[in-house]
C-alpha cells in the first residue's frame, strides 16, 4: 500500500496541483501572523481553524488528481479497501506536513509571544492542528470525484460542508455536534487560561467520533460507487 501512497503523492506533486493549496496555506499563515505576536495557544487555535478548509480542499485535490481509469487499475492491483485507504493515507500525510509548516511558520515571523505559557501553548496548538486533520481529510474524501462523480457536485459538497463547520460551530449553535469541533477548539484555546483536561477530552472524543463516522461513510460509499 505504501507504493500506492507514494505514487499518489508523486502524481500530486509532479502534476503541479499542489501549487494552489500551497499558496492558500501561505496566504492563511501570512494573514494570521502578519499583524504581530499572539500567545501560542491563541495563535495556533486560529491557525488550525483557518487551515481546516484548505486541508479539506487539498485532500479533495489530491484524491482527484488520478484519472478514474487509473484509480480502477489501482483497485485491481491492490484491492478496493487498500486502494481507498492509500488515498486517505496520502491525503493525511500531506495534511500533517502542512500542519508541521503551520507550527513552525510563526517562529520565523515572530508571531508567538515568548514571555508566557509557551510550552503548553505549543502543545495545545499541536493538538488543535492534529484534531483538524482527520475531519478535514474525511471531508475532502467525501467531496472527491470517486464519491460525488463530478466537479460541480464535489465543489458543492466541499463549500457547503465548510460553511456548515463555521456556522454550526459558532457559539450558541443549535447543533454544534453535527460538525467537527474546529471552531470549538479555537474558542477553547482563545481563553487566557488553558482549557481544563475535561474540555480537551471532550474535544478529542468529538473530533475522533466525527472522523470515524465520516470515514465510515466514505468507506461505505466507495464500496457502493465503484
Amino acid at each position, binding site marked *: 500500500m505504501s507504493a*500506492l501512497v507514494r505514487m499518489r503523492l508523486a502524481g500530486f506533486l*509532479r502534476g503541479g496541483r499542489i501549487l494552489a493549496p500551497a499558496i492558500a496555506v501561505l496566504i492563511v499563515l501570512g494573514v494570521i501572523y502578519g499583524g504581530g505576536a499572539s500567545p501560542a495557544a491563541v495563535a495556533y487555535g486560529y491557525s488550525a481553524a483557518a487551515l481546516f478548509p484548505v486541508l479539506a480542499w487539498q485532500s479533495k485535490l489530491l484524491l482527484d488528481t488520478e*484519472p*478514474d481509469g487509473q484509480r*480502477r487499475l489501482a483497485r*485491481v492491483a*491492490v484491492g478496493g479497501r487498500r486502494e481507498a485507504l492509500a488515498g486517505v493515507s496520502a491525503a493525511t500525510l500531506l495534511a500533517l506536513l502542512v500542519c508541521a509548516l503551520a507550527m513552525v511558520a510563526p517562529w520565523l515571523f515572530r508571531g508567538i509571544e515568548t514571555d508566557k505559557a509557551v510550552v503548553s501553548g505549543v502543545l495545545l496548538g499541536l493538538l488543535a492542528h492534529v484534531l483538524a486533520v482527520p475531519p478535514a481529510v474525511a471531508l475532502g474524501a467525501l467531496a472527491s470525484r470517486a464519491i460525488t462523480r463530478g466537479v460541480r457536485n464535489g465543489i458543492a459538497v466541499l463549500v457547503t460542508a465548510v460553511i456548515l463547520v463555521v456556522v454550526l460551530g459558532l457559539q450558541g449553535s443549535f447543533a454544534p455536534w453535527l460538525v467537527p469541533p474546529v471552531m470549538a477548539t479555537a474558542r477553547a484555546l482563545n481563553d487566557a487560561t488553558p482549557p481544563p483536561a475535561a474540555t480537551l477530552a471532550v474535544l478529542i472524543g468529538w473530533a475522533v467520533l466525527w472522523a470515524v463516522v465520516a470515514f465510515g461513510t466514505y468507506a461505505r460509499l466507495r464500496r457502493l460507487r*465503484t
Partner: protein
Amino acid sequence: MVRFDGVWFRYGRRTDWTLREVEASVEPGDTVVVLGRNGAGKSTLLQLAAGVLRPSRGLIKERPPVVGWVPERFPADQPFTAGDYLHRMAALRGVKAGDWIERLLLTEHTGTRLSDLSKGTAQKVGLAQALIARPGLLILDEPWEGLDSVARTLIPEIVAEVTASGGMVLVSDHRGEIDNLPKAIHWQVSDALVARAPAAPPTGEVIIEVKVRRAEAPQAVARLKAEGHQILDVRDVAAPQPHQASSGPGLTITPGASSGREGGAGS
C-alpha cells in the same frame, strides 16, 4: 475458476439493467472471447470479472488473487513517464517490471511521458501493467485497439502463455480478431443477457487452397478478386506435397497457415 453466480448489474437505481441474471464460469486454462455490439455490456461484464465494478445483485466467486486488467482506454493523463509508471505499478504488486517492457517493444518509450505516447504505445503500457504480476485472470478489453501489426501478433502469444500456466483469459472483441484465438470459448452479450455462442462466428465462408501454374498466377489472382473472393496468401511451392494431386511446381493460393484450414472460415 471464476464463477458469475446470478449476477445482475446496473449503473444507477433508476437506470435499466446492463446485465441480467448472468450465470457463467471460466475454468483454469480457458480463453473466453466476449462478443457483442457496441454498448451491449461487454466492458461491464469484463469490469465485473476484474472486480472494478461490484454486482448490483449476485456474486462473483473464486476470482484468483492476481488479476490483470487492460481497460479499453488507457488512462494516459498522468504525470509519469512510461518507465516510471510501469515500475510504480509493479511496486504496487510487490514485483519488478521484468521483461515486459522489452517484449512489448516499450524500451525506447520508457522516458516518454504517458500523455505524449501514441494511442497504440499507451495501449501497450496498459498491457504491460496487467502482465507484470503473472495474472491468474487476465482481462483484455478490446486489446487490439490502436496496436501495430507486430504488437497485435503478441496478443495471442500472451493469451497462450497465461492459459498454459493455468490462468484464465477474458477478452472482448468487436473487430473479428478472434480468429487469432482459435481455441477460445465465445460468450455473446445481447439484450443484457450473456449466452454461450457457437465456437466460430457464422461467417458463411470457407478457405480453399488452389494450386496454379506459376505463369498463370497473376491472372488467377486477378480473376478470383474480380469475382469477389479474397486472396489471403500466395506462396511458392517448390515441390509437390505427398497428399496432393500434383500437376507440377506452381503457386498455391492459400491462407498460408494450417490454423486457417482448421478454422474453416475466412473474412
